[in-house]
């Protein structure tokens, strides 16, 4: 009898607490961050023209054997300007090569943008029709991928890079992958 009496107030309270916990966690989750199914899988094959020398191409095979970042950006993308200083710092520190993928951007616009804002990329490639972007599961710019020596995607940053994301997640991961 005593047990049912305790249940009468504790059960609704427990259910309420569980619902509250779910809603509370939900407050801090961004529904626009869709987890990529490509993490832990080989990066898709691509062969794209380079921004500065359109007659030359870069393929994912060319990057084999090194850890690298693929930064998807566009000159028409406003929030790419937010992360740009961080990319410039990263290039100066020379910790990891960053390849820039100009996503659905006119090469002339991309070149002009890099000239006026600074070019942090070891190399820039052009995805004119967005097909390589689709293969990488890109659904907005900017996005940044960490790719290991054997060409496997290890991490994806959705949205602009932040100092926190770089220092606490991306760079430690890069260092670990470079050692292995």
């Amino acid at each position, binding site marked *: 009898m005593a047990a049912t009496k305790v249940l009468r107030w504790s059960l609704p309270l427990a259910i309420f607490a569980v619902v509250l916990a779910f809603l509370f966690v939900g407050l801090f989750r961004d529904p626009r961050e869709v987890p990529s199914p490509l993490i832990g899988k080989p990066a898709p094959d691509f062969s794209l023209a380079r921004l500065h020398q359109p007659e030359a191409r870069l393929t994912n095979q060319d990057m084999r054997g090194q850890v690298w970042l693929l930064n998807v950006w566009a000159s028409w993308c406003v929030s790419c300007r937010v992360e740009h200083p961080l990319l410039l710092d990263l290039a100066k520190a020379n910790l990891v090569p960053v390849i820039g993928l100009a996503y659905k951007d006119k090469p002339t616009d991309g070149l002009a943008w890099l000239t006026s804002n600074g070019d942090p990329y070891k190399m820039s490639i052009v995805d004119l029709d967005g097909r390589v972007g689709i*293969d990488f599961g890109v659904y907005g710019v900017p996005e940044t991928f960490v790719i290991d020596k054997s060409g496997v995607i290890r991490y994806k940053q959705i949205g602009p890079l932040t100092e926190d994301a770089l220092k606490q997640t991306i760079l430690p991961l890069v260092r670990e992958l470079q050692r292995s």
Partner: protein
Amino acid sequence: MVGLVATRCDRHACREFARVRNSMALVAISVLLTCAPLANAAADDALDARLKHLETELRCLVCQNQTLAESNAPLAEDLRREVRELATAGKSDEDIRAYLVARYGDFVLYNPPVKPVTYALWFGPFLLLAAGVVVWVALLRRRSRASREASTLGDGDSVPAGALSRARVLLEDDRTL
């Protein structure tokens, strides 16, 4: 941080140009229909209907509450182009869905697959419903038993201990008034 992420590009494209686009599409279709041979047009219609149906089951990742069929985001246009090319290359609906899931995850499907991570989603509501029914039936039973006891209480019947003490308290209250 969330604010920054929310400013990701491509969202401005969610505006509704559907009416304009549809009327333009209508013009394009009528031009195509008058120019193309009839047999071809029939095949195209079948393909269009198939794609239309398929695209209403797929989510646009930019405007997340819109289907691929209704969204005007540039990415949705690109994905519709990809879907059409895959379909004309002879891929089945299942192949096309697998192609998109491999790139964007189950999130692109409006109809999520049944697998261990989605068990709570698929069966949770039925479990809650069953639990509700159990509680409801238990309450009804208790209430009908209580009312039966109350109505059959005669002179010779034993009175429940709780009722007696409650009656005594009421009487004592009366005395103090």
